[in-house]
């Protein structure tokens, strides 16, 4: 089911941007509008839609399902976290899972989704599968929104070289009327509302033909299914998980702690650095002095906007420098990460060298200037 490519092959000439991109953009716009947290793509093929959706910051769970494991595996690594995701874990959590299985079968892993997309999927289904499809998607999964796209056969005469169907694997291609009657019936049956639209405008003068790709957007009319209702639908797991990636996130204590320690140490170092350079200013090094007369007006607000109260001043005592935690906590980045001062203390406990009363980060400067 190499559908993106197949269409690109002949229609890239006709549609700008290519039709598959327009379909993806359509889904993306829908995500922007409804901000779903859990999204599943049925018939995810080479995962290109999922890849695009992983950048949408509202999504926390992404799942893909396809009948062909090989086509998923080919590009599934593009769904793995990138090195930078580990370096700068994001605020949101994100789990991406790929399942191998059929939309004609129910599997509990597909429950609880907000949005389910079926882009160019139904025309690949055998009659028996198509029959079970509404019950699985609308009856069992029952997400708030379902998007279904499929070719509009009325458009086919306008496409060069299309004899019967646009793709040899297509089992059928529907006219606008055929699709709409199927969709309306399905919506009625499962208590959804449906609106029709599409991508790929027909040429001027031929508007009656309709969009090249017809799309139905189904919205569930009844409120969120309760847990009780779902537990009434006990089913066995039938899908095989072929891929799972859990993105590093600050919601995970481990990553949060790392981020906080790193930020605390870094901030403390900056404060220490400034303190020490103030000490040095009294020396006879004329080049040094000008260097630290900082003008903070443009570009950087990194250290600025900071009101240092009397009891928050860092100080030097012998070979030790103390940077109070309250000072560090007043830095926006640290503050945002921890939320509360208590949380800050809890996260760094045992990981950062503190003064005996635990109120300040302590540095020993004795071996600072050692050289190799």
């Amino acid at each position, binding site marked *: 089911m*190499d559908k993106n*490519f*197949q269409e690109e*092959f*002949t229609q890239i000439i006709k549609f700008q941007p290519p039709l598959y991109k327009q379909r993806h953009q359509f889904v*993306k716009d829908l995500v922007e509008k409804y901000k779903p947290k859990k999204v599943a793509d049925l018939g995810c093929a080479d995962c290109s839609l999922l890849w695009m959706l992983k*950048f*949408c*910051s509202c999504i926390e769970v992404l799942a893909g399902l396809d009948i062909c494991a090989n086509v998923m595996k080919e590009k599934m*690594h593009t769904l*793995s*976290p*990138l*090195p*930078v995701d*580990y*370096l*700068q874990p994001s605020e949101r959590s994100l789990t991406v899972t790929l399942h191998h299985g059929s939309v004609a079968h129910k599997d509990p892993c597909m429950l609880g989704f907000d949005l389910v997309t079926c882009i160019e999927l139904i025309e690949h289904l055998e009659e028996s599968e198509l029959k079970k499809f509404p019950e699985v998607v609308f009856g069992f999964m029952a997400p708030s929104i379902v998007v279904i796209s499929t070719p509009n056969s009325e458009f086919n005469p306008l496409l060069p*070289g*299309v*004899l019967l169907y*646009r*793709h*040899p694997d297509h089992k059928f291609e529907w006219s606008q009327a055929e699709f709409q009657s199927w969709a309306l019936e399905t919506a009625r049956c499962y208590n959804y509302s449906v609106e029709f639209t599409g991508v790929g405008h027909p040429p001027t003068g031929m508007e009656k033909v309709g969009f090249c790709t017809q799309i139905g957007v189904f919205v569930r009319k009844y409120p969120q299914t309760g847990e009780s209702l779902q537990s009434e639908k006990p089913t066995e797991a039938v899908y095989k998980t072929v891929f799972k990636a859990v993105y590093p996130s600050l919601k995970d204590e481990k990553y949060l702690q*790392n*981020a906080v*320690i*790193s930020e*605390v*140490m*870094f901030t403390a*170092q*900056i404060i220490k650095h400034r303190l020490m350079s103030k000490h040095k200013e009294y*020396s*006879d*090094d*004329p*080049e*040094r002095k*000008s*260097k*630290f*007369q*900082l*003008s*903070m007006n*443009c*570009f*950087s607000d*990194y*250290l600025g906007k900071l009101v240092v109260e009397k009891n928050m001043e860092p100080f030097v005592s012998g070979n030790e420098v103390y940077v109070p935690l309250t000072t560090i906590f007043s830095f926006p980045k640290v503050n945002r990460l921890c939320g509360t001062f208590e949380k800050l203390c809890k996260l760094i406990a045992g990981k*950062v060298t503190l003064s005996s009363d635990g109120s300040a980060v302590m540095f020993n400067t004795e*071996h*600072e*200037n*050692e*050289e*190799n």
Partner: protein
Amino acid sequence: TIGLQVSSGLQDLSLRDRGGRRRDFHDLGVNTRQAMVHVQESKTGFSGKMIKLTTNHFRLTSRPQWALYQYHVGYSPEMEARRLRSALLFQHEETIGKTHAFDGCILFLPKKLESKVTELFSRTRNGEDVKITVTLTNELPPTSPTCLQFYNIIFRRLLKMLNLQQIGRNYYNPSDPVSIPNHRLMVWLGFTSSILQYEENIMLCADVSHKVLRGETVLDTMHSLYSQVGEERFRDTCAKELIGLIVLTKYNNRTYRIDDIDWDNNPKGTFRKSDGSEMSFVEYYKKQYNIEISDWMQPVLISQMKRRRGNIQGSVALIPELCSLTGLTEKMRSDFNMMKDLAIHTRLPPEQRQRELGRLLTYIQKDDNVQKELRNWGLSFDYKSVSFTGRVVQGEKIFQSGTMFDYNPQFADWTKETRGVPLIRAVPMDSWLLIYTRRNHDVANTLLQSLFKVTPSMGIHMNKPNMIEVDDRTESYLRVLQQRITPDTNIVVCILSSSRKDKYDAIKKYLCTDCPIPSQCVLARTLSKPQTIMTVATKIALQMNCKMGGELWSVEIPLKQVMIVGIDCYHDTVAGKQSIAGFVASLNQAMTRWFSRCVVQSRGQELVDGIKACLQTALRNWSKWNKCLPSRIFVYRDGVGDGQLNTLVNYEVPQFLDCLKSIGTDYSPRLTVIVVKKRVGARFFAEIGGGLRNPPPGTVVDTVVTRPEWYDFFVVSQTVKNGCVAPTHYNVIYDTSQLKPDHVQRLTYKLCHMYYNWSGIIRVPAPCQYAHKLAFLVGQSIHREPNLMLSDRLYYL
């Protein structure tokens, strides 16, 4: 014969070399040994004690009668798109099989199809019938170079299957990072791997690799640089700190090298997309990756693409906010505390290193998918590393003014043994300058008193210097130098109060070019500790003596009339992409005096022309010193990158020969050219008392893990306090010396004893280290060839 190059398509199929061309990093197919008759039979030495060694190589085994089948795949009518070609071909998976590698043109299979030519028929979705002709073009034996490249591709596939992340050339495990918050660093453990034909077996050489990553973006770094240096020096500092660094982008798994910073551009600026339309960066990242760029005033980073598909040269613009830094800057490397903190995590002792490697192999062994892939290709690994016997050659005797010393082989150091012994040649310091700032007045006096204490036993005659106090400004130092240096001045000593590079550079530049006088710069801080001052003063006295043309010690060199040459390169990443080749050649029998020159060239030029000129002057100088020309010349060539061996063999060596010919028709000395490589993947461990230790200095390996097509060997010459010792690889690419391999090995090891800035054994032959020092000084501080008046002294130490 078998083609060397895997087609560019197959490279894509595997893992394209990020951000640039794919080179043959292993110098496959450069067969230099065949031209050297005297090592056809054997290239192994014999001297020394046997030692049992383990290494980080693992045998790769294939089924008996294993071969890789290479097919050409043609389409009629011709199909352009690669994806379509693949799709059409793999409609016939039942014929071809599930295991395959296909680049759109060449197909590799682990099994042979029934007939030599197979015709398959597919239909496109447009109903067009396509005939696919699959023709067997090659049966590749396991040892063919194509096959080796293929193994490497497959192995990288395996690492990917293990969910390791590719950064640059290697693979790293992101799930268990070590963070070093003090320096905002993160260290990922990973692996380097290469599969090659070694002496008797095809083996996987795997090593533990650490990737240092930084938890900040380039924009963060710019902010902190701004707060450190202020507006005036901000752009310069950014250029110095950032250009040359490798960055990772937030949105894809690519690495880029920062080549320039475009201060006139910003994220609002536009670029031309491949379809010809213009788009702003802000818009692009929002659309493509849903990323909002928060700072619209930041400049844009420029990365040059070396070569893309179809030889298109071009540059990529990157947004600092979306780039994370990797690796260490020069400045970080010189931060002793940072390196100390890093070393704890990255310098793994032998046992631990092997343990980490063992973990990788366990992953490979335990992962079903990986095992399946290997099985499908008919390949497997020995999960136990290769063991063999190496030799430890005997230690050298150190001669100094008629006295002979042995050193403790365990430490490979003779500092203690030679303390207080007269030097071979002590140059008197009759007239010299000592320059310091007022604040360092006391320090200067301490240094002077200490020097007076340590120099007499060395045999150095020292007068009171001309002590001059200056302001701590670069101009003050330079003015004093201009006014106070006389023709009699032996050496200038400057005490600097900070490690500010510009001051050091200015002093060195003046004293190496305009006014050629040896100079010694000392950081005041180094002299501030009373408990170490005598040691420091001793080192400084020795170093100064060498800079003035003195000689410290020697080892026995049995060969007569021999000139040893060392060459190393320095590549300047900042100032105009200069490259500098340091060239050092011995002047006397004892190898205690060295002539030096260097070649400064800008990007795109070849170093070799300059090196030829250097060799000519070196020969002239040698004949001046020895009243004849050398009958043997050894060139130790360092600074050769992976994949450059071919150039060296075909271009540089003929130039050496040309140069020798040009000296005179009756002059035909014996020439040996040895490529020295410090960065090698091989590690050796001595099996001592049931555990693994670093092998002792003098360990020579010339079997099992060397390459059959080369006359090569490894020497472990130095010792390390922490971590694993890295062997140095020597590859004799040209040799008319008729010397036995054992003698070449011994000579090489002897030369590792002759570096005067370290009274111990070093990693490379002394001339290489001298050449490195020279190239570094010129590249970092001087930027042009130093005055030839200094060329017979080690002024660059």
